[in-house]
């Protein structure tokens, strides 16, 4: 990685290519969201609940495998009170036969099972929760914009916001495109992506600000390139370590964290890309000027002393 330090990569020179890639990804994502929609998980849709009683305590993982093998999706299997009673939740629209179907499958697997009840269950995520969370996210983005505008400048705030939207839309779009299951853990991953992407963007911004203040030239693309090249080894180290953890989660973590890890991996990759090519490159598009960063002179001399 040492070699990267001295080499100056011309990031900004390729920004039009990058814009095209971003635009294409956004287009595909939005189209996927509109035409295919998200494949929402049990948490959001509700489904069927089947309670069964075994003669001897079964292995829950085996039960799960039997049901998933038979094509049921989003299966959750829990002991219920005693170890011989098992509660199964399926993402399957309720019909009166599902209970029998499940019990027959389990019997065929060689266990002695009887059906206690089969009923539909509603969504775990109520409308109220959905609306509140959506509202929360909007307010959060608004406040972050204000903070960035105050600490940097409003052009930076626009760039950061667009970069965030870019990342969120693309990650959600991926889930719609491939019809991966979107449940509460993926929602949490998405929030984490927002945190990560914001963090990454601010670090790049900070260096850009510093470089603009220090340098004597007015050629913004060159200044940006210098700043991004300086943060490059940090960017690679950080996203590298984060990706290491996430790859471990993806490859070893089992199917429950599978989509969670995918969402985060996609988010980290897109987030790193967008810090440079959306957040930073947009500053060129909105014609960021040295004057934008020169604090009002004399009124507040302390600002200059910021390291």
């Amino acid at each position, binding site marked *: 990685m040492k070699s990267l330090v001295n080499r100056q990569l011309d990031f900004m020179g390729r920004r039009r290519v990058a814009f095209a890639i971003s635009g294409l990804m956004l287009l595909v994502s939005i189209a996927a969201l509109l035409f295919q929609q998200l494949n929402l998980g049990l948490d959001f849709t509700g489904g069927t609940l089947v309670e069964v009683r075994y003669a001897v305590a079964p292995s829950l993982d085996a039960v*799960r495998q039997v049901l998933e093998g038979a094509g049921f999706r989003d299966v959750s299997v829990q002991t219920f009170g005693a170890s011989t009673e098992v509660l199964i939740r399926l993402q399957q629209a309720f019909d009166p036969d599902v209970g029998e179907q499940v019990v027959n499958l389990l019997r065929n697997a060689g266990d002695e099972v009887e059906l206690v009840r089969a009923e539909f269950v*509603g*969504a775990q995520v109520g409308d109220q929760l959905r609306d509140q*969370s959506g509202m929360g996210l909007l307010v959060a983005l608004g406040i972050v914009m204000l903070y960035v505008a105050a600490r940097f400048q409003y052009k930076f705030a626009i760039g950061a916001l667009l970069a965030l939207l870019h990342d969120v839309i693309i990650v959600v779009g991926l889930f719609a495109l491939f019809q991966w299951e979107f449940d509460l853990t993926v929602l*949490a991953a998405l929030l984490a992506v927002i945190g990560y992407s914001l963090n990454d963007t*601010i670090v790049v911004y900070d260096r850009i600000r510093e470089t603009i203040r220090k340098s004597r030239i007015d050629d913004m693309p060159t200044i940006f390139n210098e700043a991004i090249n300086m943060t490059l080894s940090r960017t690679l180290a950080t996203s590298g370590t984060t990706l290491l953890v996430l790859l471990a989660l993806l490859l070893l973590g089992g199917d429950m964290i599978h989509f969670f890890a995918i969402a985060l991996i996609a988010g980290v990759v897109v987030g790193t890309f967008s810090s440079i090519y959306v957040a930073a490159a947009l500053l060129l598009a909105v014609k960021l000027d040295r004057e934008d960063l020169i604090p009002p002179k004399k009124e507040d001399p302390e600002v200059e002393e910021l390291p």
Partner: protein
Amino acid sequence: MLNRYPLWKYLLILVVLLAGLVYSLPNLFPEDPAVQISSERGDATIDERQLERIRDDLGEAGIEITDAEREANRVLIRLDNADDQIRARDRISDMLGDEYVVALNLAESTPAWLQSLSASPMTLGLDLRGGVHFLLEVDMDAALEQRLEVNASAMREQLRSERIRYRDTEIEERTISMAFASAEDRDEARRLIAREFPDFDYASEGEDRGARLVMTMTDQAVNELQDYAINQNLTTLRNRVNELGVAEPLVQRQGPNRIVVELPGVQDTVAAKRIVGATANLEFRLEARPDTPDSETETFPFRNQESRSADLMRDVIISGDSVSNANHSFDENGRPQVNIDLDGTGGTLMNRATRTNIGRNMAVLFIEHKTRETTKTVDGEEVVEREPYTERGIISLATIQSALGNSFRITGLDSPTEAAELALLLRSGSLAAPIYFVQERTIGPSLGAENIERGIMSVQIGLLLVVLFMLVRYKVFGVFANVALALNLTLLVAAMSLLGATLTLPGIAGIVLTLGMAVDANVLIFERIREELREGLSVQQAIHAGYERAFTSIIDANITTLLVAVILFSIGTGPVKGFAVTLSLGIITSLFTALMVTRAMVNLTYGGKPVKKLWI
């Protein structure tokens, strides 16, 4: 001098780390299945003699008690396994009857010395550890009857205002039947009512003095009512469970008329059970004047003094449904009170009623719908019969001194617990229909043991990879960063335990993210130090400048993320909130470890010494 910390900084770091260690320790001790017993009002529990009887009884049934603890307002009986737990619960609750609430619980087994420091473990969420599962049934018949009552009185009101004479109304299952003095009156009434109440099918029966109007609620209206009742109850239960401070609960509809409530891990399950099922409400009524006709009054006993009673007006000024906010506190004499804020309409009604009645008495009536359960053996099978009944009692009767407005307070409650619970119930709204418990079980983790094991293993391997990466890339400084990472994890666990946060899979996502951000902070600093060294600064200056210059980046990046987390916490609910808690705590602990702790280590190793070369 460069790169020296004053002694107090080292001491501060040491103290924080020690505290972190102590408060994260309880998480190493597993939880026991237990049964919790409290009195129905939550302020007392069984005595030593009853406990002895329970011991004997469980002993006879071959259930082994690991431990039994008596506290001020609850008894906790620890058991070996979940099977014993359910059997013990059933036996104890049969033995103690209605006066006590017996609930399943998971009891922490933190050693006493840690408990004395009020250290307790993190709760694991429903996905990782499971919890307690309540199945509640909404009493649809009662919901229907209530609706018909309301409709019937509105119809009577309408007839009165149109001066049509009616005789009596009967409500049966889903029909209202109204008797009239003549067929003409009946037909006139039918014409009027049918216009206002489209939810009914109308039929005219009988002639002359036997003329009746039979109104049957349509299937569609009944279904709508049921959906409404269930959804209203779902919302109310969600509010209540959230108000209880239970993190990461599950409240879900099951089947046409049931609601599942699942609460994770160690909680005061008895309080949860009492609150979830509670139907308490308030009514404000004027006391009747001596000359008020009997048909307009009702007599109620006082709640804490059964022999005393008062005549109240039948008309209700407002009920608890008009309350917009309520909280509990103490009055000048240290008695519990509930402060109430009314919504707009409620405030107007209250003001109008009190303004014109200064000097009269106003009563606060406490209403509770309850069910008595009796188990009978019919044809060799045990059948649970439920008999609903309503308890009404006056909790205060006071003279109206001046016109009341939107906010006032009420007193006359038995205990602070009762005041707190009444305030909670008023805040979270009343149930649209009575509900009762049909099932209570412990429930296993929804993710499955294998998945959890694999999940935890993969997180460990991931962290190990990060540790190796940092060692290879930053050598000695990598060691500092790794030590800081371990301490960060300890501090985060300690903080989450102290706050009583619940750890779920999304929560682990938050932890992974904050650890990533903690590493990022150190990466930023170390890269900066390398840069400064390349620029030709001396070792000491490079360290100093590296920390100093990376500081703004780190602070800006972390504060923006913290802002997101804090707002998600204040607005979000459920899983979003849990994630936000983990993330905010993680940002704070990682700032501390990545900035202060690594700096302290660097200063201790290199500070104030002549160093030629840095292993970075």
